[in-house]
């Protein structure tokens, strides 16, 4: 029984790993006030690049670096056009996502359906024997470990370092940040690049671990859009966003199990079900905005205490451009 549970949990974490990486990347970027809508295309192009590099040099880790570089490059393009040239981040992001997708299929054609290396499994010595966590983490793909470490690092960076304060400051009020001597546009570009690299890592995680190989379709199509939704679901907080990614993966994986239990229900139902489930969850999480629930919370001290610090507000300056030459 515990083995089945461990297996299911491991499957969930595996499916969640690239989603976690992509949501973390977008959370970083949006927390700095920039919306990067190119996620879906970036993931695809990064997945292709990662696989192509891994095949060519026979090194999956070099492949992952390649994927990260591609993700960062696309985000950098968006950053320069959106932040420094003052164009609409939304429009540029949309175009980039379409461009990157077509580019991925076109350039990746020769690598289609080819065998290639993958990231394999990491066996952490001694961990396998530990009760409960052993079967889940003992011998798993490194992307699982990477994604979980990334959650901690992102949280630590955002909420426990000076750089993290600056990151949130430029996303909250670029004017005030400028007044404090922060180079707003540079900071924003930097987190565009960092976020893009994480998104690229998500792409590499697909083609080198979760759904190894390249082809059309690769299997990661749509992941970028769901990651964008999960960022909102997570209220722009790295840990909550990661939980959202795990929840979505759990819904997907449970569909596989449920299919066996209810063979009479058509399979597509289980494939589509996670999407409306996410919308319902989003509604439940954001109940605090509804008037009568606010009244209820105010009347009950316990609920009131629980609701404190439970903010789902977007960064106040999300998507707004800022030009220091125009002054305050």
């Amino acid at each position, binding site marked *: 029984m515990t083995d089945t549970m461990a297996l299911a949990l491991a499957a969930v974490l595996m499916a969640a790993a690239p989603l976690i990486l992509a949501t973390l990347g977008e959370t970083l970027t949006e927390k700095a006030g920039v919306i990067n809508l190119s996620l879906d295309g970036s993931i695809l192009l990064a997945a292709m690049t990662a696989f192509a590099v891994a095949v060519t040099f026979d090194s999956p880790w070099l492949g992952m670096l390649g994927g990260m570089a591609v993700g960062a490059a696309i985000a950098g393009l968006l950053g320069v056009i959106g932040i420094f040239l003052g164009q609409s981040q939304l429009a540029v992001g949309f175009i980039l996502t379409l461009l990157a997708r077509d580019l991925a299929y076109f350039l990746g054609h020769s690598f289609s359906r080819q065998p290639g290396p993958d990231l394999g499994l990491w066996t952490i010595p001694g961990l396998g024997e530990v009760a409960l966590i052993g079967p889940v983490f003992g011998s798993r793909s490194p992307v699982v470990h990477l994604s979980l470490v990334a959650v901690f690092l992102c949280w630590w960076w955002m909420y426990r370092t000076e750089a993290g*304060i600056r990151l*949130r*400051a430029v996303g*909250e009020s670029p004017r005030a940040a400028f*007044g404090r*001597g*922060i180079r707003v546009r540079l900071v924003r570009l930097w987190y565009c690049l960092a976020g893009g690299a994480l998104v690229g890592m998500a792409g590499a995680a697909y083609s080198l671990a979760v759904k190894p190989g390249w082809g059309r379709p690769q299997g990661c199509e749509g992941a970028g859009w769901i990651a964008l939704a999960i960022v909102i679901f997570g209220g722009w907080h790295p840990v909550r966003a990661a939980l959202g990614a795990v929840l979505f993966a759990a819904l997907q994986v449970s569909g596989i199990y449920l299919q066996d239990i209810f063979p009479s229900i058509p399979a597509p139902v289980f494939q589509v079900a996670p999407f409306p489930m996410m919308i319902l969850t989003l509604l439940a999480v954001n109940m605090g905005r509804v008037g009568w629930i606010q009244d209820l919370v105010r009347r009950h001290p316990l609920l009131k205490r629980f609701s404190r610090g439970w903010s789902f*507000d977007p960064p*106040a300056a999300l998507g707004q451009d800022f030009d220091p030459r125009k*002054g305050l």
Partner: protein
Amino acid sequence: MIVLQDIHKHYGRVRANDGVSLTLEPGRIYALVGENGAGKSTLMRVLAGHTRPTSGTIDLGGRTVAFLTPTLAREHGVGMLYQDPLDFPAMPIWENFQLGAPKRTKGQVFDVIGELSYRLDACFLPDEAVSSLTVGERQLLELLRLLDLGATTLILDEPTTGITPEQKRELFDLLMKLAREENHTIVLVTHKLSEALEMADAILVMRQGAIVATLTPPYDEGELVLRMFGDAAESEGADAPGPATPRPAALDAPPRLRLDNVVMAGPKYSMGPMRFSARPGECIGLAGLDGSGQELFLRGLCGLDRMPGGTLTLDGRAYTTNDFPVLRRAGVHFVPADRLEMALFPALTLREHIALAFPGRSDELDAFYQSQCVERFNLRAHPQTRASELSGGNQQRLLLSLIPDHAALLLMEHPTRGLDAGSARQVWSHLHDRCRAGATLIFFSPDLDEVLAHSHRVAVFYDRAMAAVVDRARATTEVVGALMAGKDPDQVLGGGQ
């Protein structure tokens, strides 16, 4: 010593600063006065490094530069405090305090905040979010932060808007102490002459982008007004008494508005149950610090915030829910302080605004525009102008002209926000006309003098509740100020309420 030489700042064709030269010496308090749009704020932003001048030089203790950056200004000890504090409401106090300062640990920041708070008689909980503070506290936090950064030249842009008279007293004492004992330079940007006369060692008068006079004590108030407003000032100066306030209906007349045990609830807090009533023709001013409840009161009355309990009676009709469209049809009209953001459509023309507000008149729109906006409200703009291109005064004129004549209850947030003295007078004279015709006005202004000057009764809010309602005869700055600061109404009003 700081010397500004021949500073020009042009925004397109607008010359916000047109050749300003200025010397600031340590240990002195300067007041920079002038009407809205005279260029005071622009000049101070240049000095704080928040905006680059088009031309001119800035001399800081021997070093001459063409422009400053915020970092450079800080290195030379220049710090600026904005009217709307330039901070990060969603972030904790200690992070706000630390941003822009040299590297320190969280513990050190806590210690510094505690130490400075003790010295300046303030109290801050460093882990709380800045959004939980009042405007006055946010200003004080900014002041603490600037002092911690070693600021020796402090620029304060309209620092007394939205704080109580008592807080103002404390702030002025603190500034006086900083100037006299610690040799700081203080620049007070203000449009209130009384503050300038009270505090300043020198008053710099700005008009149309230039410094037109530098006055030193003993001051002649008449001369100051003359310098500020030019020749037109003598007949109608800034502080000239407004037109006579209209008389409200008799006490035994049926009330326009009655609230019975009304509870109001906004996104952040709720308040009540409240009892309140207002007569036709009455002007009721709301006084209170930011977030004390007056905003929720106005928004709840018109249906923008919820009314979960109680009965609202308007002209004899009782309502237990406050549905915005229903109340609007019954004659309740709300005019927000954020005109462009909340009340107008920035990209639509004036003609389109009129067409939207008066749907039945589409065939004779231009004639109607002429009679309604131009002749009645003195709105001198072409009907094809977009709302976003209007000045603050014209925006307010447009908004007032869009309110139908049968409006029974006018709810106004800061009716004269951002208006120059002339436009403000015009707005008030129009509002008085409305009251004379029988409308009831309930308004809020962060400027206590404005509230006192135009109210038959003043409703004071404190700590998210209506603390007291004071008659005109007893509503003095001291009484209302004490109530705003949370003094017991029974004590302040002698138990007579």
